[in-house]
């Protein structure tokens, strides 16, 4: 350390949240899965929910999410996390049940499960990581891949004539009466990360109050599969993803609007 220690009295103003386990993650350097994990853990700590939390990990890069949190977890088949969460929540209604899903998992193979969980007003929270590709299998085209975006299964760029158009999941789910809180946030800079944390907090408050389905879509970077440095990836998210996936609140029930954080 080239910087001298401070001689004044100091306090820790930020520490690793208790709800994260001490395990090293398998995520690539810069991957914002880690940021999303950290935010969830911070909210769990702040709300004192550790003993009531049950997480449902999905299939994709976040398949090992259960290793990284210090609360109960199960691991779901690909796309079925909202169904598993439904099963858990219906027998244990006072627990806070969270699914953590990527875009291939939630918006492709698991679209039926999430749509119907939302339609039922299932009192669960889905954290939805949108990084425009299938990360775990090596960067294939996902339902969220942008038009023209090159992936390992759209090597010439996503051709909407052949591959169809990306799905804007938050907008889609917001049309369902059972959905109480559906928002899109981004993890590309400090301000947006703080807003994302607030949204996760709100979603958990929604669930705690029994107000129905909540989903927080988080725009994320995938530097490795995008073939970029984390720095470039952050820039790409800001320049390409946000214009297509507008940040904002897509569904906030009046009763949710009363929640003050």
């Amino acid at each position, binding site marked *: 350390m080239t*910087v001298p220690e*401070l001689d004044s009295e*100091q306090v820790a103003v930020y520490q690793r949240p208790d709800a994260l386990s001490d395990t090293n993650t398998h995520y690539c350097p810069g*991957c914002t899965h880690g940021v999303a994990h950290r935010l969830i853990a911070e909210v769990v700590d702040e709300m004192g929910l550790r003993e009531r939390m049950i997480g449902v990990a999905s299939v994709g890069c976040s398949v090992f999410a259960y290793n990284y949190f210090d609360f109960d977890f199960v691991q779901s088949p690909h796309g079925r996390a909202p169904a598993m969460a439904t099963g858990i929540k219906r027998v244990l209604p006072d627990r806070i049940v969270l699914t953590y899903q990527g875009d291939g998992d939630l918006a492709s193979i698991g679209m039926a499960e999430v749509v119907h969980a939302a339609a039922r007003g299932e009192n669960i929270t889905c954290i939805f990581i949108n990084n425009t590709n299938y990360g775990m299998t090596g960067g294939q085209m996902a339902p969220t891949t942008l038009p023209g975006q090159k992936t390992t299964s759209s090597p010439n760029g996503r051709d909407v004539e052949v591959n169809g158009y990306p799905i804007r999941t938050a907008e889609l789910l917001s049309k369902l009466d059972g959905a109480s809180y559906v928002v899109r946030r981004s993890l590309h*800079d400090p301000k947006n990360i703080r807003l994302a944390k607030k949204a996760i907090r709100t979603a958990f408050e929604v669930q705690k109050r029994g107000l129905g389905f909540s989903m927080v879509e988080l725009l994320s970077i995938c530097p490795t599969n995008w073939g970029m440095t984390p720095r470039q990836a952050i820039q790409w998210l800001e320049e390409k993803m946000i214009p297509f996936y507008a940040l904002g609140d897509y569904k906030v029930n009046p009763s949710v609007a009363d929640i003050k954080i």
Partner: protein
Amino acid sequence: MPPKGRIEVNEDLCKGCELCVMNCPQEVIALNMERMTKRGYHPAELAKPGCTGCGICATMCPEAAITVYREVIQKPA
């Protein structure tokens, strides 16, 4: 005068992604290119004086590897 602060980076967790480096408003964090962590990354560290303990680096850090300290400013009685 801004408060004084410092950060500690847990080198078991740091992957040298530079998200803290690129977002530090004081530009006092850098990767240490002289050293490698046991997982093979150049770790981030406080490279210069001037840290205010604002916590933006910790907000960005995907590995929750950063602990942020800030000096306690004694209010005049």
